[in-house]
């Protein structure tokens, strides 16, 4: 599979986990989108650093070639899937801890 395909799949899995499996529904929470809006510019900054200085390079055959601030667009999907899935698990663990205290 190409980077494009895997990154789309990763987002679909993360969204499915959040909405239907773990059911944290962070995608409907203002706090999640506010956090993401804070994280995304920093992701662009660090990705720009890593790609413009050619610390990390990509095979042009496995990406669409669309780039934001020198980094492949696929990196945005990669980052979104990573952040959503970690935060979903983090909040779910908090939910369970709260339930145990009650």
């Amino acid at each position, binding site marked *: 599979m190409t980077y494009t395909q895997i990154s789309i799949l990763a987002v679909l899995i993360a969204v499915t986990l959040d909405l239907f499996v773990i059911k944290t529904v962070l995608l409907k929470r203002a706090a999640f989108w506010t*956090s993401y809006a*804070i994280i995304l510019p920093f992701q662009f900054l660090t990705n720009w650093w890593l790609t413009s200085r050619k*610390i990390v390079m990509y095979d042009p055959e496995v990406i669409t070639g669309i780039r934001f601030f020198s980094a492949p667009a696929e990196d945005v999907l990669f980052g979104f899937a*990573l952040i959503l899935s970690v935060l979903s698990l983090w909040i779910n*663990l908090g939910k369970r*801890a709260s339930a145990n205290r009650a």
Partner: protein
Amino acid sequence: MLAFTVAGSFWLEIALKVRVLRRIRRAMTAIAPVAFCFLIWDAYAIANKHWFFDKEQIIGVFGPLNIPLEEYLFFIIIPLAAIMTIEAVRAVKKDWIIGDEK
């Protein structure tokens, strides 16, 4: 780049008392399964040369599956920064529901 992320987010631990490092077990429990999946992806991408690293610009220490040390650190530090971000949003916007409130 990793040091920048640490500097950019870990001050939240003190300034906003997000207490993520004090809940490191919960954080690691949330991060471990996600990091595992992304490292498998990373290993696949490295093995198939989807992305590759400039040997001059990495430490040069490789962990299992031929993954550079920096990548292992990346999958711990980026999720930690994301958790600190959402906890900082919670600290500022106390009336926003995230789903794990007591």
